């Protein structure tokens, strides 16, 4: 199956700092999503971004599908940004539209006040 690697695994920053989280994947994809898992375990959808660039407030994401990576940018970090950030993909030739997402292991982000 497709491999998804996220880096760094852990990141500790001061409030106000900027950060870049990376997601590498081993095959072509037709779906890529970024999630934020809050302290209660809920997965919050951040971006659906199989290619291109999107922005939502202080967050933005870029996927370079031809080079098989995606980046999540967080600017002016706040303590509420703490949590685990997951990248998840669906392989492009997986054979059907029902295939579920394959997740990376996540980046654990801690924003200190």
């Amino acid at each position, binding site marked *: 199956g497709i491999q998804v690697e996220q880096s760094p695994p852990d990141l500790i920053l001061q409030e106000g700092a900027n950060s870049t989280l990376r997601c590498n994947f081993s095959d072509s994809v037709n779906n890529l999503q970024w999630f934020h898992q809050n302290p209660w375990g809920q997965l919050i959808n951040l971006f659906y971004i199989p290619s291109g660039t999107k922005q939502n407030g202080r967050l933005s994401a870029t996927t370079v599908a031809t080079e098989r990576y995606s980046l999540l940018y967080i600017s002016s970090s706040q303590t509420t940004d703490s949590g685990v950030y997951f990248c998840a993909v669906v392989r492009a030739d997986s054979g059907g*539209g029902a295939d579920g997402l394959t997740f990376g292991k996540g980046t654990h982000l801690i924003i200190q006040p």
Partner: protein
Amino acid sequence: SQTIHQWPATLVQPVGSPLSLECTVEGTSNPNLYWYRQAAGRGLQLLFYSVGIGQISSEVPQNLSASRPQDRQFILSSKKLLLSDSGFYLCAWRRLLTANTGELFFGEGSRLTVL
């Protein structure tokens, strides 16, 4: 708008007891549905998915089973729980964007502890 609900939110069960987790989706019809598990650590593992009533695909052989008795209802079950079944179980539905692509949305999760 579409919503997804799971229950119970938390449960503690003895080894060997049965399990039933339920997931329902509102505001859409014939959704693709998924069960994931997040064990200790951080990774999420796909357990089952369903494209319609009575249609279940299993991704990982294990002590669990899934059923879809109604269009918007997805149930995760076990006849006899093992310690290794402990974890955080998440249900998801797919909002189709094209015939072969779509965005997944997750429920609040059910945290299972097997003692």
